[in-house]
């Protein structure tokens, strides 16, 4: 049997990130405020990123995108395990290596990366995803366990497009949808995401 669901969240204003509670983060009002401050800082760092000169070389653009991504990560580093953060940096270095870059692709979009970080902080997966990118500069996270696949594409303004397929005794089940970073945990819950997120 094969079942498939497609879920699309209702649109909501793109301006400003909803800084709601982060599951698994340190509890308490002070900690919550700290997290919110960090997120504001993260958003600010992206919007303040220097505009790229049109004449900038591809190498410069990739370098700038890589640095911006690492700076953004450093702003929330206290919420990431050291091993997780170091692995992410290695993956980003690998992903944006100029020798493998398709010159027709856009460099990593800072806002897409912010959405990725926020989603990771909400989901807190113990197992890191494999990383990829779309031609338009959106980062992609992929978790694969045997035949079970979970893929997320991170847009600007907190949007996440996702698709999954999983196999159990009832056959293959597929689902896809579009939602927001702070909703991913609830959206994935019926599909037992620990199969992807646990080590």
């Amino acid at each position, binding site marked *: 049997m094969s079942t*498939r669901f*497609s879920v699309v969240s209702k649109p909501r204003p793109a301006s400003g990130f909803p800084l709601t509670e982060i599951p698994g983060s340190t509890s308490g009002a002070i900690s919550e405020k700290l997290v919110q401050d960090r997120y504001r800082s993260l958003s600010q760092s992206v919007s303040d990123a220097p505009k790229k000169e049109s004449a900038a070389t591809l190498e410069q653009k990739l370098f700038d995108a890589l640095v911006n991504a690492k700076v953004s990560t450093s702003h929330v580093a206290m919420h990431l395990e050291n091993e997780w953060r170091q*692995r992410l940096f290695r*993956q980003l270095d*690998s*992903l944006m*290596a100029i*020798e*493998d*870059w*398709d*010159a*027709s*692709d856009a460099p990593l979009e800072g806002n897409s990366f912010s959405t990725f970080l926020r989603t990771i902080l909400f989901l807190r997966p113990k*197992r*890191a*995803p*494999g*990383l*990829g*990118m*779309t*031609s338009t500069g959106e980062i*992609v996270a*992929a978790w*694969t366990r045997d035949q079970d*696949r979970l*893929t997320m*594409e991170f847009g600007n303004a907190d949007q996440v*497009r996702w*698709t999954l*397929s999983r196999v159990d005794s009832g056959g293959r089940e*597929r689902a*896809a949808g579009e939602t927001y970073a702070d909703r991913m945990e609830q959206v994935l819950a019926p599909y037992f995401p620990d199969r992807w997120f646990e080590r």
Partner: protein
Amino acid sequence: MSVVNIPHEHHVIRYASWTKLRKDENDNVLGILPDALRLREVETSLSTTWIEWFDGPPQNQYLNAVEMIRRTMSVSPRGGMSKANVGNLRELCQTENVSIRIVHEPTDENDAHASIRRLPRDNLDLLELLAAEAFTETILNRDLP
């Protein structure tokens, strides 16, 4: 020139750059991502190379197709050559009520060029299905002779 539909039992190769490859957390390559099959704004069909257009035994046909891609595209050592069966591609699309056409459309550079037409521009679910169940054999360019 008449349009040649590529037979069901034949195969095509799609080149996917490093960023379009599905990897695990240690960068081991597992296949391709849906975006490897997503049409860009300027594209109306998905470009592939028809393996059986070349003569010889299957392995020679495959390697000749790879060589054609290398000659006609900018490829990197960590780019992936991903192979799909044409019939499987059509059948998977039909399960989603999408009727694609896979036709031989030679270009000035690539005589074995094949186009996948009528592929929805932005159906992530379908593209993921094709990435997972049609393009099932992906080999890094650097690992091929």
